[in-house]
């Protein structure tokens, strides 16, 4: 069982306020713009708000997909994009099953959540948390939280939507 960290959230608790996305686009790009946040928030009726982040897959398909080897994993286990190497092919975007890596509209480079935790600290609903697969299994013993992601996967990971 891997110990790789990632941010995850409970769509039953998340209020949909987008403080995580606003924090992210401000922290990294000095603007407010959900399109420029490294995560996404999607409201799905009835009453679910999905805060969506990079899942930090052990066998991260984005790394393998990049023809420029611009995506690597650091010693701390974080998957990062080297902007100097990234040539905006978009292969990583296609490879990611979670639509968690996208092309930034201003820089043209791939960008994704790097588990910095800035949003976790600011979530007013305490809906999101830094976790690992092992911890998540412990926290979500009955699988009901992860089950919602599974149930709605077609909507929440749909890349045709743009965001």
């Amino acid at each position, binding site marked *: 069982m891997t110990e790789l960290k990632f941010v995850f959230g409970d769509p039953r608790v998340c209020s949909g*306020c987008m403080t995580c996305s*606003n924090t992210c686009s*401000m922290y990294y790009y000095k603007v*407010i713009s959900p399109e*420029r946040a490294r995560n996404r928030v*999607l409201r799905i009726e*009835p*009453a679910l708000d999905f805060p969506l982040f990079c899942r930090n897959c052990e066998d991260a398909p984005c790394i393998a997909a990049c023809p420029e080897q611009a995506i690597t994993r650091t010693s701390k286990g974080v998957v990062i994009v080297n902007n100097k190497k990234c040539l905006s092919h978009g292969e990583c975007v296609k490879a990611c099953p979670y639509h968690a890596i996208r092309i930034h509209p201003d820089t043209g480079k791939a960008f994704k959540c790097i588990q910095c935790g800035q949003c976790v600290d600011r979530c007013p609903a305490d809906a999101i948390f830094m976790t690992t697969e092992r911890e998540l299994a412990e926290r979500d013993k009955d699988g009901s939280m992860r089950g919602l992601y599974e149930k709605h996967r077609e909507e929440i990971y749909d890349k045709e*939507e743009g965001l």
Partner: protein
Amino acid sequence: MIHGVGGKTLWIDLTRGVIEKRPLDEEMINEYLLGAGYLSRVLFDNIPVGIDPLSEKNVLGMATGLLTGSMFPQASRHVIAALSPLTDVWGESHAAGFWGAELKFAGYDAIIFTGASANPVYLNIRDDVVELLDAEDAGVWGKDVFETDDILKSKHGRKIRILSIGPAGENLVRFAAIMNDRDRASARSGLGAVMGAKKLKAVSVRGTGKLTVADPANYLKQMDVFHKRMMANPFTPGRIKYGTTSLVELMQHIGRLPSYNMKQGVFDGFEKISGDAINEKYLVKARADFSCLQRCGRYTAVRTGPYAFEGGAPEFETQSSMGSRCGNDNLESVLFGHHLSNQYGMDTISLGATISWAMEAWDEGLLTGDDTGGIDLSWGNHETVVNLTRMIAFREGFGDILAEGSARAAERIGRGTERFVMAVKKQEIAGQEPRAQKSMGLAAVTAARGADHLYAFPVLDEAGFDDEIRERFGKEYLPEMADRLNPKYKGIMVKECEDFMVMVESVGLCKYGTQIPPEFFYNDIALALKIHNGLDMKGGDLQIIGERIVNLNRLFNARLGITREDDCLPDRLTKDKAPLGPSAGEVVELDLMLDEYYRERGWALESGLPTEKTLKRLGLTKEGKEVGLL
């Protein structure tokens, strides 16, 4: 250059189908900010006198505030205004949600609609691409609010944010709402009927742009301070737990819960429609709007029975208007009625108040089955409340008369039913029985849009905000100002609250967090405008702007003939003593409070209109001349 805005406004001529993009008038911001202030100016300049609000000559404005889309707590709001088909005077309404922020991300701060389309249309905005599309081709004309949301999302993408009218707006119900994000309502003033008359079904928006801020280096640090204050406020946990629903219990406790068409301020069945009753059995989730930390939005479900539904509902106002006001303690019908009102797009306050007017007339024997087509209007008949909700939205049978609102319906029916109309300037009084809180009675008559609790939202005497009163007014105003039954100083309080609240509506913030709880005041907002927009304004500057907006709203109404004579309450509230409960024996001492209010405003006591000195001080002499005051 101003930061934190879309930077453009859209001017849509629906008659000719012409779309014009104009740069945001930054000079106007110095005098009116954006949001409510911007619309007060634009509509004063563009709505002719003597028009039918449902004609093509009416102008419908939608505007975001300066902080809408920012990280300031609850910066989610937009304002809609036009000449009201319910009151025939200034009409204005506000809502939260995500639509306002999305409009800004698309690059626009406001939309002004003129004229009327020959065929049903909707405005679709995708960043730079703005187009009027055929609403019949798209299959949304004739559809309810939820269906419209679903259809436009499947057509334009899941991330699109939709504002629309439902059947009530299309059918020109005079208290039709404009809905956004499914269950957020710009409900009051009947602006949904203005959209319906213009054959404008919806405004769908997708914005992929960004808001730059004036002080990026300190932005998060300062917003963290605001966020921590909001989260630490003692009101916040209760707001999260109950939204506004627990106000039923609080208002019963002070005798301010309108019951039986405002005959009284207490209701025996209050516990059955209370916040706790909702939480116990029906609450699914508390949800938020953009940048909202308090998440007062309720998402509820009734799982079985005739009132089964799932969706965004309710607010205190609906518990009061469709519940206690109709003598109705059937909570499932109240929740379902609210849901239906969202679906059809109606103001639940005017809806419940109009039904309760009819119920009292029935109780008095002034309405019979011959009038209602056999519908039984007995107090507490929850089936009638729900059935009439449908019938009003579609103007079926007796619903057609009620769709005109209680004042017009009473005028048409006559027989003495007029005395049961609980309205000011033809808009129904909201869920604040004013004999139990005098400031609310005054606020209802001074509000520009007719009976209204929100224009001033004078709650400082409601829940023991003595510290805030001391800070904002001075200790010499205590204890009278804090005493909800004492009319003294209420004119001063309502004036101060109006100035502040219209300013809050001009920056796109919520009244929760600014007025109740009174966590953020002028100086906090000035600081937010500095780091977000780069505006260099002091708290005092913002207060003057608020005052200017209130005066311009008053001039808008004065031009239509409104004077002190129109600033009146139903006789029941000023002459009949409250019969029961903790405020028994009270009446609203309106004239006393009005005199104080006009003096404080610098308005003439006799006419209730601004004096030359006041107009000069606020830079409104040209407008005063136009209205004939100078």
